[in-house]
């Protein structure tokens, strides 16, 4: 394990919606070490909030369960993992579709995965029915700055 990541943290909490703010604010505070812009931090908070909400209202529905959040820093990248032992996603393809929701009665917009995918560089969904779901998301901090530097080099 030693030397794999520059820094790492783990959180565990029960599936209550009160914990959405706790989760996103804690991850944002941890990622702050990479000196992100306000926009980058806001993107990460939003993506974490979406994934945690999914675990609470879809994964565990009305039951109480444990949600695990971990964040790993390496170089100028962050990898965030959010997992639950809830009911799992039957059809990931369908769940990823913008505006698809299995819970319109809760006024869910079906934009959760679309937002995660557009706010993070990479989103991986692993799920098994009856076992749970794991979301792994990556984002490079200061990505735009780097691209600019590369452009200069190419020119």
């Amino acid at each position: 394990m030693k030397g794999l990541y520059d820094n790492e943290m783990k959180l565990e909490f029960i599936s209550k919606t009160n914990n959405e703010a706790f989760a996103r604010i804690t991850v944002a505070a941890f990622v702050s070490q990479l000196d992100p812009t306000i926009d980058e931090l806001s993107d990460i908070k939003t993506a974490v909030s979406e994934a945690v909400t999914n675990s609470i209202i879809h994964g565990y529905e009305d039951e109480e369960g444990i949600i695990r959040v971990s964040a790993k820093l390496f170089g100028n990248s962050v990898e965030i993992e959010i997992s639950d032992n809830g009911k799992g996603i039957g059809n990931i393809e369908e769940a990823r579709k913008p505006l698809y929701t299995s819970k319109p009665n809760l006024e869910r917009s079906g934009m959760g995965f679309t937002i995660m995918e557009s706010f993070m560089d990479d989103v991986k969904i692993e799920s098994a029915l009856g076992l749970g779901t794991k979301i792994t998301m990556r984002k490079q901090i200061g990505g735009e700055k780097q691209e600019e530097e590369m452009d200069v080099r190419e020119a």
Partner: protein
Amino acid sequence: MIVEFKKEDKVLIFKLTEDVDQHTSEKIRRKMDNEIKRYIPRKVIFDFSNISFMDSAGIGMVLGRYKLAQMLDGELEIINVNRAMKKIFDMSGVSRIINIVEEEKNEGVI
């Protein structure tokens, strides 16, 4: 949330005071519905100036109230959203049906 009703022009303002996620939106949407039904406003305004965060729960919260306001012949406007909120409203198509005024530091935009 601070609720304000301007009687003379029948404008109902919801000034949000807590970041919007599934937890907070569930708490306030019933109250919003009750206020809309009570005043039957000509216009409902969502003011985001006091908060800095909203996730996709904000989409449902706004659209739900928009439908109710429309049913009662009113309109709905969203004001003082930041860049991240605007992005979410754009992605979900909300900005195509609801007028959104981005953050600006002039007070009393009605």
